[in-house]
């Protein structure tokens, strides 16, 4: 499927970028990421201008990268500052430097016309860098196109069937959703409020709630990359007060960054931020392991789907029902960003 260029994408969790060279391919563009001695994240094109050797397989010398093949050396702006055996550095000896913003614990890169890169348009996930929250995170590479992950996350009824025993219970698939599309802001909201639901192990073990719960799932998708799931868990019948803090409930902010790597591969960045048991390492370990398991269940399913799609005849006609209302809206906004624009179109 096609990519939406001239957009910000998450290339890494901040903690992944350090004094080692990190290779990532975003929208088909190979990048090398590292951090300068002063702590600034840098993203350069991962191909030496000389003979294309990947700079990610080279070495850092201070804040410069020395190509591991012939020694061409690049500074953090992508300018070549040394070539072997001669004094004159060719005018075209430089690699592309990508606009980078580190925000909310993510390293965002701009893919497209850098003159259009406006950091103010990057959607926020403030809980990931808020000391009042405890955060677990990870990244899973998918051998599947990014649209399959968008479909997956926009329709959480799949939790009941694919993630039973972790986050899925019968009520998720059984509860009607409300969908809103904010055309001006380009955001899709999907809301599923379960008044009386079984408490899945993911929340029973982490919150300590015994018995049934009131469970709210409020999705915000900011195409193309950022997906937020505001998860509210409370003992059954406990609702937010009209005024004041919702202190009788447990809140988890579940964040995904969906970054296309190639046409058929995707980076699935995930994070779970919680406002309860923030100092309890055992809860962190449990939620990390559980969400990793859930993500890998999705990865297995979506990798299978990618193979199915690759083998199917052209113009397979899929079927959409009520649960797909949010996913269809997300597809349309994505298509608009890519440059086309039909609802429910085949991939």
């Amino acid at each position, binding site marked *: 499927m096609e990519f939406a260029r001239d957009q910000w994408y998450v290339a890494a969790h901040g903690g992944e970028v350090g004094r080692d060279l990190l290779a990532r391919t975003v929208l088909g563009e190979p990048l090398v990421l590292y951090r300068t001695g002063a702590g600034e994240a840098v993203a350069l094109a991962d191909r030496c201008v000389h003979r294309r050797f990947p700079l990610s397989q080279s070495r850092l010398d201070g804040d410069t990268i020395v190509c591991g093949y012939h020694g061409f050396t690049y500074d953090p702006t992508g300018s070549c500052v040394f070539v072997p055996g001669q004094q004159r550095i060719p005018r075209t000896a430089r690699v592309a430097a990508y606009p980078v913003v580190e925000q909310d614990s993510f390293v965002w890169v701009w893919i497209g016309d850098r003159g259009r890169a406006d950091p103010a348009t990057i959607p926020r996930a403030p809980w990931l860098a808020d000391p009042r929250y405890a955060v677990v995170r990870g990244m899973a590479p998918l051998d599947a196109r990014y649209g399959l992950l968008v479909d997956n996350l926009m329709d959480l009824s799949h939790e009941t069937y694919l993630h039973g025993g972790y986050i899925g219970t019968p009520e998720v698939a059984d509860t009607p959703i409300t969908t*809103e599309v*904010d055309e001006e*802001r380009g955001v899709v909201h999907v809301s599923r409020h379960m008044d009386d639901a079984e408490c899945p192990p993911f929340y029973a073990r982490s919150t300590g709630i015994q018995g049934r719960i009131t469970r709210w799932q409020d999705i915000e998708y900011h195409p193309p990359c950022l997906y937020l799931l505001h998860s509210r868990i409370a003992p059954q019948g406990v609702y937010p007060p009209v005024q004041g803090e919702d202190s009788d409930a447990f809140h988890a902010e579940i964040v995904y960054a969906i970054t296309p790597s190639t046409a058929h591969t995707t980076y699935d960045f995930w994070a779970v931020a919680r406002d309860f048991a923030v100092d309890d390492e055992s809860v962190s370990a449990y939620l990390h392991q559980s969400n990793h398991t859930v993500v890998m269940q999705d990865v297995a399913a979506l990798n299978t789907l990618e193979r199915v799609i690759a083998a199917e005849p052209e113009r397979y006609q899929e079927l959409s029902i009520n649960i797909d*209302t949010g996913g269809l809206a997300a597809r349309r906004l994505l298509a608009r960003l890519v440059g086309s624009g039909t609802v429910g179109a085949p991939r």
Partner: protein
Amino acid sequence: MTAPAGQRVYRVHWVPGTDVLRGTCHCGAERLADEPVALWEWLLGHPRGHATATVPASGPPARLAVPA
């Protein structure tokens, strides 16, 4: 749900207890449907066909009332 702040917001409510979707355009026009593809096409076709497309405020029928 976090309230969207834009002026042009399309809403689709799955009417509780039914299989019916109720689409509401930012212009106020409403339509009932039993599947989302045609409903989105109608919503996003604003203003085409929206001037006359309203449904009674007194609750929806048990099943689809307006063909897409």
